[in-house]
């Protein structure tokens, strides 16, 4: 009897398993030589142009376009606006819209559509408070004015509260000011609650989204500019960096493109190094996109002493660091902004690697290394610094360990504090750090948005600079540089701000972050976008 029951139980189990396994439905993205396959860590999201996560910025940039487009040299070029004029006081911008542009549903792109989109963004201005452009426009509306006015079918006038110069750079951002087709607006016009469909003017349109598996984009045949070479773009969902490398090795994906490094990156730098050495694989590294740096707290013992800060900067062999941790993928950085960023080509003298000089500086400041001890001390206090990083960020951890070694050589003790990311960011906000990792925001935010944020107490930069005797003067200059209409004055102010921060040794720049790209020889027309969120898929062609 017992064995019959076993047989019954077995059969039930087999039946359940097999029926479950067979229920495995077959869905598949398009496959042909007209399909370009890329991968991302998640689905691209609902692609609402006026909202943030979970929409992925690179995908928003495929479907929606800006009035002006950010260029690699930091300037902006005409895009959906064919030209523009600025009033003498720098507060009014007249945009002449490009004619003959249609949304992918066939409706025309015109001043009404522009106004509709701006209104939707401004209605939700609280959420975009971080963006000065929105604050500037909202302030005009709130004062009873009309920030966005339709002049005629193809002309729109924007009125700002102040002569905020980076307005064009901010109009070029991927979000929130890009343009959704009027037909895709919800009935009440409030896009912050959702949209009917992701319809834009961009080179691609979304045709299929399969949660957890892939998203499919199709060439927008109505596109006004250069149309994509490929018919389809498939974005597979692959969260794991190693799995992505395997997908490339087996031909499941055609392209690896994005930031390097495990975690947020597309593939680990060691994997990139492996591809570099393979003959039939093409690899490339972009121009600098942002700066990887640490901020030194001028408001906290012992980094409140400039001699200590300068000694730390001289103690680090960045060349070795870049070669061995970043495997040469990123370039050594000597200033907080790369010289290729606008207003940043200042020829600042670098803090060269000079451990003997660093020790001399500390000796001169009274930090004495007594016999038998490893670390220096003054007035009975040990020269020790809290070095804060995100504990599970492998790259930050290895950099922190190397820095600890360099600092030990000059008699400075570094206490490594690796925490989970939220605690880490709380430290940035509160200023509870000696040395802390903090990357610049990169193109197109550098230098203006990044400098602007130095005035806000919840930023690591504000906290780090707080001990500088000239902090108030720096903040005033930042306030001025953002609204001056005089190009020369702007240049002079930036030079002043950045030189002061450099001389005061507030930052330990490590490397200029880059994007990496890996593909096979049969993929042509590849290149890097001007910002890390704009991937030029349209020019790529698979042979």
């Amino acid at each position: 009897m017992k064995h019959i029951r076993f047989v019954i139980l077995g059969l039930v189990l087999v039946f359940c398993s097999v029926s479950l396994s067979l229920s495995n439905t077959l869905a598949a993205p398009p496959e042909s030589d007209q399909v370009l396959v890329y991968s991302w860590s998640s689905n691209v999201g609902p692609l609402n142009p006026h909202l943030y996560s979970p929409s992925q910025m690179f995908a928003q940039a495929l479907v929606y376009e800006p009035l002006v487009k950010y260029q690699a040299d930091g300037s902006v070029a005409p895009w959906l606006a064919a030209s523009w004029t600025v009033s003498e006081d720098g507060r009014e911008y007249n945009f002449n819209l490009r004619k003959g542009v249609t949304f992918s549903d066939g409706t025309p792109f015109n001043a009404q559509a522009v106004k509709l989109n701006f209104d939707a963004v401004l209605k939700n201005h609280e959420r975009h408070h971080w963006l000065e452009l929105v604050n500037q426009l909202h302030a005009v509306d709130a004062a009873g004015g009309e920030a966005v006015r339709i002049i005629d079918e193809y002309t729109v006038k924007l009125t700002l509260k102040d002569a905020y110069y980076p307005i064009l750079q901010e109009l070029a951002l991927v979000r929130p000011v890009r343009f959704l087709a009027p037909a895709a607006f919800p009935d009440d016009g409030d896009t912050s609650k959702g949209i009917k469909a992701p319809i834009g003017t961009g080179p691609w349109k979304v045709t299929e989204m399969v949660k957890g598996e892939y998203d499919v984009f199709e060439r927008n045949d109505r596109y006004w500019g250069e149309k994509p070479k490929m018919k389809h773009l498939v974005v597979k969902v692959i969260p794991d960096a190693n799995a992505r490398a395997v997908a490339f090795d087996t031909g499941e994906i055609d392209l690896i493109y994005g930031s390097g490094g495990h975690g947020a990156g597309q593939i680990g730098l060691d994997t990139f190094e492996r591809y570099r050495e393979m003959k039939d694989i093409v690899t490339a590294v972009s121009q600098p996109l942002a700066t990887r740096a640490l901020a030194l707290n001028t408001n906290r013992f012992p980094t409140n002493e400039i001699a200590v800060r300068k000694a730390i900067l001289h103690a680090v062999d960045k060349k070795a660091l870049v070669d061995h941790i970043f495997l040469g993928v990123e370039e050594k950085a000597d200033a907080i902004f790369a010289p290729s960023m606008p207003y940043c080509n200042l020829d600042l003298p670098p803090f060269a690697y000079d451990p003997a000089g660093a020790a001399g500086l500390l000796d001169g400041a009274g930090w004495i290394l007594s016999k038998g001890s490893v670390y220096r001390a003054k007035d009975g206090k040990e020269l020790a610094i809290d070095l804060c990083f995100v504990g599970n960020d492998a790259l930050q951890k290895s950099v922190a360990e190397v820095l600890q070694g360099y600092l030990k050589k000059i008699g400075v003790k570094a206490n490594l504090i690796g925490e989970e990311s939220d605690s880490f960011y709380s430290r940035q906000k509160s200023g509870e750090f000696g040395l802390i990792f903090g990357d610049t925001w990169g193109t197109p935010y550098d230098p203006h948005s990044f400098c602007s944020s130095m005035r806000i107490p919840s930023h690591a930069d504000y906290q780090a600079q707080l001990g500088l005797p000239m902090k108030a003067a720096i903040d005033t200059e930042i306030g001025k540089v953002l609204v001056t209409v005089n190009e020369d004055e702007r240049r002079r102010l930036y030079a002043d701000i950045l030189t002061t921060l450099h001389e005061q040794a507030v930052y330990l720049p490590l490397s200029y972050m880059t994007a990496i790209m890996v593909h096979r020889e049969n993929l042509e027309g590849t290149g890097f976008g001007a910002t890390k969120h704009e991937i030029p898929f349209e020019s790529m062609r698979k042979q």
Partner: protein
Amino acid sequence: MLRYILKRLALLPLILLAVSLVVFGILRLGEGDPAMSYLRMSNIPPTDQALAVARAELGLDRPLHVQYLDWLGRAVRGDFGRSYVTKNPVLDEILYYLPNTLILAAASLLLTLVLSVPLGMVAALKKDQLPDHLTRGLSFFGVSMPNFWFGFLLVWLFSIKLGWLPPMGKGGPAYMVMPVLTMSLMSLGINTRLIRANMLDNMHSRYVLYARARGLPESVVVGRHVLVNSLIPVITAVGMHVGELFGGAVIAESIFAWPGVGRYAVSAIYNRDYPIMQCFILIMTTIFVTMNLVVDICYAWLDPRIRYEGGGQ
């Protein structure tokens, strides 16, 4: 028996309530701040004002007990809130991914049983001979090998070197081979050893001696008596394997880009998507408790020697 089942089922809501309270508390008392994670995912600088807006939007600005009671009140009606990240109803999201994980878990369980029973038998019958050594080696390998590493080795061999199997994604049966092998490796190792040990134990029992004394052929002794009795503890093990399989699914789904609930839960943890984590843990609790109950019932059905409190037979 029925009373026993009902009693056990009645306990389920209490267990879920306790689990929900603990999970809710632990998530909130931890260091993390979902508003901060949300802003970082959105590439918005976390100014105090931005944080306040995000907190209000996610409902995190209210006192903890209000948040919990509000959540509980809606959860009992089947509304587990909306994901902080996707803004979709949590239950819809999890139920979308759950079947994919069940498919993998079911196939892995099947594979474990189909392979471990004959392997364990052979090892026991050929004790200390070559088949036994091989099987024990395999078990040792299965228990010691980290499953993520095994998964990558499979990919390297079958997808990169040989090109026989698709490395990732969901599709036909070929897509399931490697994830299922990865997930079942450990249970397979444990189960094989368990069956072998049980068989050896039973073979030295008196009833086997009597069976042989009665002149029953060896195949009947082994097949009908030893094997059947050796399988009973395996039922208990299966209950535990289900847990292992769901744990293994988290890894296998990440390696093989399989759109399952394990991978989804991991991303929810990274993003501090509390509503998803809460619902996921409750569903897993339900599955575990139910599986244990099913195992106990099967156990009783198969082995009348087992008595239940109050139930009796």
